[in-house]
């Protein structure tokens, strides 16, 4: 589904990704773990198409398309979802308005009919319920005044509504308390665990992986994958630290 080959990327002349290769098949959950500064967030941003990063070498193919050729909004319409480590606040724009515009923009790009206001609200209510989020929260402005945990849950509600094929989740577990972690983990499973979908989970810690069981775990260090294994690799990392395992 997603195939990354020998990806090199830099920002402001600083090399961050150094020949990263990775392949994620349909129906799979891959976890990427690694120390601070390894390039985890850069990988997420490069896949999402954030301006400022320069790809100097390599390729990324998503569902048969050259991902790097697409504009960020075209990537979203193609079915890619980027869960932000720090979701952005947008004063003056309500979640409902934002997500309805976003969903209908994606549908339009795919040649589908737009959802009416009523249909959209029904869908939003269902997905908010999945993450145990009050609909009143969705009437408020995007992420404004939300706590760290609420922002992360709101990200998952967005994911539920937009229903992507592939989700790149950048430290979705950071800022969550134990209960919220469980809700978010179950939400990811409910929304993304399907034979035709896949997830790339970026995280520092093992704890989210207790709820969202990965099929494959990769260790990212100095801009490339240095080790790949099964779920047991995450436990080994937790026990022995990155330095010992990634060396």
């Amino acid at each position, binding site marked *: 589904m997603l195939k990354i080959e020998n990806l090199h990327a830099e920002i402001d002349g600083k090399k961050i990704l150094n020949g990263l290769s990775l392949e994620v098949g349909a129906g799979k959950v891959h976890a990427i773990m690694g120390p601070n500064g390894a390039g985890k967030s850069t990988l997420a941003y490069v896949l999402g198409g954030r301006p400022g990063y320069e790809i100097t070498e390599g390729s990324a193919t998503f569902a048969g398309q050259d991902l790097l050729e697409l504009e960020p909004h075209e990537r979203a319409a193609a079915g890619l979802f980027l869960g*932000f480590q720090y979701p*952005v606040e947008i004063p*003056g724009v309500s979640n409902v308005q934002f997500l309805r*515009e976003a969903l209908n923009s994606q549908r339009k790009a795919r040649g589908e009919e737009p959802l009416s206001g009523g249909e959209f609200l029904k869908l939003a209510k269902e997905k908010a319920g999945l993450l145990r989020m009050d609909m009143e929260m969705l009437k408020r402005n995007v992420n404004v005044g939300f706590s760290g945990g609420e922002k992360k849950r709101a990200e998952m509600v967005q994911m539920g509504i937009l229903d992507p094929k592939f989700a790149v989740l950048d430290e979705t577990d950071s800022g969550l308390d134990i209960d919220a972690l469980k809700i978010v983990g179950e939400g990811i499973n409910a929304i993304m665990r399907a034979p035709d979908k896949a997830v790339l989970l970026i995280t520092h810690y093992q704890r989210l992986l207790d709820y969202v069981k990965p099929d494959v775990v990769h260790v990212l260090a100095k801009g490339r994958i240095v080790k790949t294994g099964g779920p047991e690799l995450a436990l080994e990392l937790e026990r022995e630290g990155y330095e010992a395992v990634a060396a």
Partner: protein
Amino acid sequence: MSAVTLPTRKEEEWRYADFGVLEAFAPESFAQWKHVELAAGETRRKCMVLGGAEPELHRIRITLGEGARGELFVVNNGGDYTRVEVVVHMAKGAHFEFGGVTIGGGDVTREFVTRIDHAEPGATSHQVVRAVHWGRATGNFLGRIDVVRDAQKTDAAQDFRGLLLEKGATVNAKPELEIYADDVKCAHGAAIGQLDEQARFYMAARGLSPDVARKLLIRAFIADAFAAVEDEGEQEQLLDAALGTLAEAV
């Protein structure tokens, strides 16, 4: 012929005006003031949308009686040069609410010049102005507030924010406060910025095209100016009127 005093650039309130266009106005137009008077306790709201092809000059004098409430909301759009001047005289306990948006690209110049005269105690005024410009356009706001010595318990607030979509555009903001009373609240703020790049990427990552994302952000930005319009339908109309020309912005 009665003498009409023509504006000059030496006067602060005309300093940033487009004199190339002003010279084409008939001299009489500078003497034409529209007078609006609200009786004690009266409430009146007026929404103005400037959006024609010709330059426009509007000079309005408002007198608010004791406890009266006047509200004026203006979309300042349209021809090469558009200017709305408002002089408000406030009696005891009156309230004046002003919301204005200047918007435009190309070579246009748009101006708001307000002068609020807090002549008696306990009057309140609230002004919110937003300016959105691109191309080589200019948006100006000169907001003068006078509080006389007896006008204790005056509460006058003025809030200006400018959004520049391109490098060649300009906004000028000048609050002028003359306060002679000591027990008053006079708040003013002015800020100028660009569209939030992080918000734009976040919106793109959810599937919004750059055009749609920009329009949503600009709508949110100018909405403050019309937040005090109680009728939601009227509020929407003003926002739509303001955003009508946005399509031409790059």
